């Protein structure tokens, strides 16, 4: 056989991945409302298939990319010539991983709304798809300006999703959320403009930013501009106050988007746009960031243990988990365990948290409440549901053979190498996580049946009216049906992913290792000697 050049992801695919959700979203707006849900599901499936093809075409071993090691599918066109912004996209291993996370979770998120009838459903699914497009855009952009546009664009659909379909106090809460994240973003914009003005010839390209050698004192300013934006989005400890309320108020599909994918934007952006660009400042503030993260872990775990509502427990647990991811990432360990652990844990957390909030959705739609006091004994009525919930619970407390185990192990390992004490305190997250997750499971699933969950004799299947009962107090009483087919179709892939990545995390290593190596080498290469 002749030597075929190994396949490389073509630019057409990367453009299609970026553009398809927007087009699909606009098409849904034109369809009659009753098809919106199905059309959205089909669109996300097509997008997932496209991603599948991209994985197949993606060449991990490509070395001759003009950009970062195996950056491919590159499109680089002038866009706004006036100030050098370009339409510049491409995927390396890390981007690919994030795109996979987004596009594989989206069908599940859409499917999780299958039994729910939204008012103005066209608009809802349009916003969800717009969100998907914006998220993919964040992950594939290689031009800082383009990246910023998508970063902001992702905020608008989720704002409206919560504002229009959220729970109590949504106006006030969404507003806080919006102002909070936007103020961070505007600071980042100022940072981006400053960097742009430093580049010779004026460029927003990631390559131009990486080539900068910035004075260490100036790096600190840029660091803060970026770090605040990311710390608010993730969120890290002193900037987290928008998060619990927003997660709680958002419709569950919105919470899944927020926690499953959107917060990963912050961590991804740290890897791509902050750490290699201002390495001196990152090293200078490394201890501070890790301490913030660890304080966040302890604090959030503590609060989670005292919460009385299932959804709030999961919201706080999310803060604890991302704190650990960021802490591990910031060790910048040369053995790559920090980066790799963060990447694996991002995927694991994304999968698990979607599962957890779907558990919330199911309990909420069946019983009209997620307050722990009112739950109990569900396992007797819905054994399949209880088993699935157990698997997800185990995954989020990082039991071996689940996806989180390997991630948390690597993260704690790298923290241990960095500092014994940090690892010891951060390790509490596993213990505390076990406490609050198992408590949540025990109180809601085991024990005496609460009044709300007593099954009525002879009632099988789920009557339609019980699904729309998202309003607390209006749930249909005395009834808890086990999983329906569409619900199983959400849960089983999640369980599959939990086990698959628990046993074979090598997939993520293989995909991202070269990119991680490259980013770490950029950091050492770019350290400006302090004068």
């Amino acid at each position, binding site marked *: 056989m002749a030597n075929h050049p190994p396949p490389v992801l073509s630019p057409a695919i990367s453009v299609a991945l970026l553009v398809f959700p927007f087009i699909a979203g606009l098409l849904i707006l034109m369809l009659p409302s009753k098809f919106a849900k199905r059309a959205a599901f089909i669109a996300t499936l097509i997008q997932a298939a496209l991603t599948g093809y991209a994985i197949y075409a993606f060449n991990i071993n490509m070395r001759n990319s003009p950009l970062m090691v195996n950056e491919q599918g590159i499109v680089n066109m002038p*866009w*706004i*010539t*006036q*100030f050098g912004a370009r339409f510049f996209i491409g995927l390396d291993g890390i981007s690919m991983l994030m795109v996979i996370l987004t596009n594989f979770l989206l069908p599940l998120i859409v499917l999780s709304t299958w039994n729910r009838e939204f008012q103005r459903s066209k608009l809802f699914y349009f916003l969800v798809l717009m969100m998907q497009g914006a998220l993919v855009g964040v992950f594939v952009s290689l031009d800082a300006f383009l990246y*910023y*546009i998508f970063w*902001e*664009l992702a905020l*608008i659909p989720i704002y*409206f999703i919560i*504002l*229009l379909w959220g729970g109590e106090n949504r*106006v006030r809460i969404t*507003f806080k959320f*919006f*102002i909070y994240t*936007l*103020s961070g973003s*505007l*600071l980042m*914009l*100022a940072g981006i*403009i*400053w960097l*742009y*003005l430093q580049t010779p010839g004026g460029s927003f390209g990631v390559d131009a930013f990486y080539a900068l050698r910035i004075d260490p004192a100036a790096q600190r300013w840029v660091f803060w501009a970026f770090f605040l934006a990311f710390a608010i989005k993730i969120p890290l400890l002193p900037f987290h106050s928008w998060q619990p309320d927003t997660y709680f108020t958002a419709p569950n599909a919105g919470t899944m988007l927020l926690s499953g994918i959107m917060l990963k934007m912050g961590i991804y952006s740290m890897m791509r746009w902050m750490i290699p660009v201002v390495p001196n400042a990152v090293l200078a503030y490394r201890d501070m960031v890790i301490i913030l993260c660890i304080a966040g872990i302890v604090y959030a775990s503590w609060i989670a243990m005292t919460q009385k509502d299932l959804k709030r427990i999961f919201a706080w647990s999310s803060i604890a988990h991302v704190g650990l991811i960021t802490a591990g990432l910031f060790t910048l360990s040369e053995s790559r365990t920090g980066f790799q652990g963060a990447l694996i844990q991002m995927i694991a957390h994304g999968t698990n948290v979607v599962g957890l909030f779907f558990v919330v959705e199911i309990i909420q739609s069946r019983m009209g409440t997620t307050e722990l006091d009112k739950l109990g004994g569900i396992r007797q009525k819905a054994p399949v549901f209880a088993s699935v919930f157990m698997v997800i619970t185990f995954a989020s407390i990082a039991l071996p053979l689940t996806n989180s185990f390997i991630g948390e192990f690597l993260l704690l390992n790298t923290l241990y190498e960095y500092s014994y004490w940090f690892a010891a305190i951060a390790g509490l997250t596993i213990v505390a996580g076990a406490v609050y997750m198992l408590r949540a499971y025990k109180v809601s699933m085991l024990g005496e049946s609460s009044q709300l969950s007593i099954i009525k004799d002879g009632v099988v299947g789920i009557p339609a009216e019980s699904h729309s009962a998202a309003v607390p107090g209006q749930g249909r009483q005395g009834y808890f049906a086990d999983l329906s087919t569409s619900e199983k179709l959400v849960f089983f892939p999640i369980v599959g992913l939990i086990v698959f990545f628990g046993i074979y995390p090598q997939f993520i290593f293989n995909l991202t290792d070269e990119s991680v190596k490259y980013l770490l080498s950029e950091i050492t290469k770019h350290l400006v000697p302090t004068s």
Partner: protein
Amino acid sequence: MSTLVLLSLLGFLVLFLGAYGMKKILLPVVITGLAAAFVLNAMDWNTTITWFNMMLYDNYAVSFTGLMIVVVLMIMLLATYHFRNEDSQIADIYALMIFVLTGALVMVSYSSLVMLFIGIEILSIALYILAGSRRMNLSSNEAALKYFLMGAFSSGFLLFGIALMFGVTNSFDLAVISDYVNDTDEIPVIFHTGVILIMIGLSFKIGVVPFHFWTPDVYQGSPVLITAFMATVVKTAGIAAFYRLYDTCFSAIAENSWYQILWVICAATILLGNISGVLQNETKRMLAWSSVAHAGYLLLPMLALNELSASAIFYYSAAYSFASVTSFAVVMSLCGVNNELPIDQFKGLSKNNPLLTFALVISMFSLAGIPPLAGFFAKYFIFVNAMRANLNIIVIIAIVGSLIGIYYYFRPVVYAFNNDVPPLEKIRTNLAFNIVVIAGIMITLILGVFPDLVSGLPGN
């Protein structure tokens, strides 16, 4: 140049058509006339015609004229909706609007201070009448009177400044004044006084702090359509005239004469405009303060004074004008007979009329500067331009101002999606109105995604 002649004739033609009661052909004539003016104007691109040392019709003038013609056309189409119940005076209104446009055209293409003054007067006198065009309405009369008094004041300042300038340089010609500034080492104090007085006069026109006091009352009192006119065409013309004069003539003495004053004006305008916007409960008042704040942003490129300033001002004016026309269209459709619109009256809009809701969202988001809409790029353009000139502190002030602004731009949007009100009477709009609203939305989106289309326009 032919554009100016055409527009003047068009104004008289419309007056005559109105006088002879030919209302049916009024609108077609106006639209054809403006379209012809737009084409004639576009044909002047890259020709740079001078006219008796009075007018200099360069690319800067062509770009701004083109923008203003499009905006006026949109407002004219809205007029068919706005005056649907009181058609008696519509010919006069059209004619006056065309005269305002003529004045605005002179304001962006003058090369002599006399022409600047004449342009401002042509524009202002027609506007005073327009502000009072609801003759039976008390607040409309009040607005007209206030606007007239303030306008007369500002003309006085301007004229005084021009006189001082003439006294020093012995010329009204911009080129001569510019040469004088560049060649003279010791510029007399009286010249600097003239610079400041002209600045005060123009500041009144574009309504920046501390010369903004008329804005909220006049915006609120005037008919919505005229308010839209003031917020867009007048502001664009004013800032274009302002920049043209200070860039051509006074850039060399910026540092030791007017720069610090303008810096303070700019910062104060951005902050006060946005903070006061937060406190408003009436939509037109809120938009008035928003227009004050936007005037502040438009001063930033004047401070930067570099080769991209003209483009930045042009792009910002365009983004701001189209978003404003769209938002005023929405306000117009909701405004009751008493010409007032408390912000909570947006409640239930999303159920009532999706097109208007979409227009509201797009225009408010664009004014707030949220990507990927035109308003965001406009702000961005201005910030980059200012940071190039090392104006970092004022950029931070402007960013804080934008953050405050988001609060009040979001309030109508949030109310619009609040549906716990009894269903209102269906809002009826006409075809011309819908065309304008859709065009406004499309332009705001397209300018946002492809800013390159116009961002380079005024050239150098």
